[in-house]
């Protein structure tokens, strides 16, 4: 187990500052003042490797091809990620609008529903207790005269109990549910009828139309967001392919280009620290195209 402090000791060493010293900066400022030209700054140039490509004109052209492929890649239902996101946002916004219009109504409904749920639990508990007592009496009645009806009950009940035990041991929820239904049937219990009766007794509030619509729209918004995200992932893969790059290479190129567009808007593209002169030239030449995707 490598503790972080140990890792720190392994990776950390004291290094000499690599930046221009204040004295050198002053000298450069002096040079600029005398010549009218900025001194050539001494700086670490951007380093390029197999993940970070220099964004020269050819690479920028491939990047733009990838960005275009990403923006037009189609996901579920033949829609682009952008179209799915817009639909998702529209559904979520409409749901939020409905909820805002009826915020007090929802609070009242939630309160009434909680009271009804509590009542429902009480009622179902009482019914369960009653069924238990009836079952106990029925079991007691099993002694004595043996009738065909009693025999059938015992057979059905035993079979269902055994099935339930096996399903429970197998942790098979579907089989557990089936076995429980058989046991209820053998015992003459109808859980659905019990629930309906209890709900009627507790006067559970009906879900108002606006709430049904709001919840449905919210769910639709979420579903579309998931599809949009899937389309984004697929779009990234398509983009890398179109740009003739690996996904990490494309992601890095796209992030650096997006950074360039943002820095350009703020009037400073990094003073040579982030982009090489070749990159600055290539990215500036295609700035209008890049803004379509990052503007």
């Amino acid at each position, binding site marked *: 187990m490598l503790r972080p402090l140990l890792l720190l000791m392994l990776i950390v060493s004291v290094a000499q500052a690599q930046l221009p010293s204040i004295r050198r900066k002053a000298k450069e400022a002096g040079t600029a003042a005398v010549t009218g030209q900025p001194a050539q700054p001494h700086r670490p140039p951007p380093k390029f490797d197999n993940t970070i490509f220099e964004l020269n004109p050819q690479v920028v052209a491939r990047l733009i091809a990838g960005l275009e492929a990403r923006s037009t890649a189609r996901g579920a239902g033949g829609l682009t990620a952008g179209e799915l996101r817009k639909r998702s946002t529209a559904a979520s916004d409409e749901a939020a609008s409905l909820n805002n219009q009826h915020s007090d109504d929802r609070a009242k409904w939630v309160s009434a529903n909680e009271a009804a749920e509590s009542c429902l639990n009480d009622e179902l508990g009482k019914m369960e207790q009653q069924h238990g007592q009836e079952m106990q009496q029925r079991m007691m009645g099993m002694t004595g005269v043996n009738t065909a009806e009693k025999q059938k009950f015992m057979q059905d009940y035993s079979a269902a109990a055994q099935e339930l035990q096996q399903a429970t041991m197998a942790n098979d929820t579907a089989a557990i549910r089936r076995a429980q239904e058989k046991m209820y049937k053998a015992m003459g219990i109808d859980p659905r009828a019990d629930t309906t009766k209890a709900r009627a007794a507790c006067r559970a509030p009906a879900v108002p139309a606006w709430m049904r619509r709001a919840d449905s729209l919210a769910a639709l918004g979420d579903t579309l967001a998931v599809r949009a*995200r899937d389309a984004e992932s697929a779009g990234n893969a398509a983009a890398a392919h179109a740009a003739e790059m690996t996904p990490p290479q494309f992601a890095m190129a796209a*992030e650096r280009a997006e950074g360039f567009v943002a820095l350009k808007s703020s009037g400073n593209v990094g003073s040579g*620290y*982030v982009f090489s002169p070749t990159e600055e030239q290539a990215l500036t030449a295609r700035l209008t195209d890049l803004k379509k995707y990052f503007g």
Partner: protein
Amino acid sequence: MIGRTAGSVIAVALFAAAAGPIEHEATARVTWQRGQAGVEWATLPIRGQSAAAAVRLVLARVDPRLVTFDLVWDVENDRPAWTVDRAPDAALSLNAGMFVQQLPWGWVVMNGRERLPPGIGPLSSALIGLGDGRLVWVDGDDVSAWRGRTDVRFAFQSYPTLLTGNGEVPVALRDGEINETHRDARLALGIDREGRLLIALTRFDVAIPGADRLPFGLTVPEMAAVMGSLGARQAMLLDGGISAQLAIADSAGTTRAWKGLRKVPLALVAR
């Protein structure tokens, strides 16, 4: 007057390239300053080689018992729209999670409702905010025990995991499964042994206007080391690079913002 709390000593922070020779370990004192109730913050300049030549760490730690966290989903006109400027009243705010393109990667729960299902990846972690204000950290991508629970108020995932369990560096972070040498602006989130949320943001620290936003900083293993040194038990990276942004209100209520270059769709805001 800005109040100061006792400083913590962390192993520092003069970083060389990961492959560089080991010369010696250094230490530096972090002097935590009080922000709004429950928030402390500090800055720590560090120097190393190459693109880590001059980096400033912006650090924060937050006591979840004293603040309320909200996860903010902010998309407008089909574009991510959140920046730290959108939370002027926050005690602390930062971008949350990792982003696919315009949507967040992984699990997102907002106000108790799951907006996006969990992502899969062994080097992912999740932060969960419960209805009672407690924070839960989940190592790995299995959040099944928390899905659908009514006490989960918000949740999000991110990657890569920097520290798991009790401050252990994941094996996958050491065996070359991730790029160990790439330097970038970083934003890390963690939780310490006292249950405080820890945040570390890197900023390129040279006297050039706008240079603080440039995407230079530390490697992933170095960020694991920083978080471990700060006392994090568990930690993960959030989207860094041009997305990374953090704002902290000081004790006088003045917001100090370290802005990003990109608007993001998801943010964590403490008030």
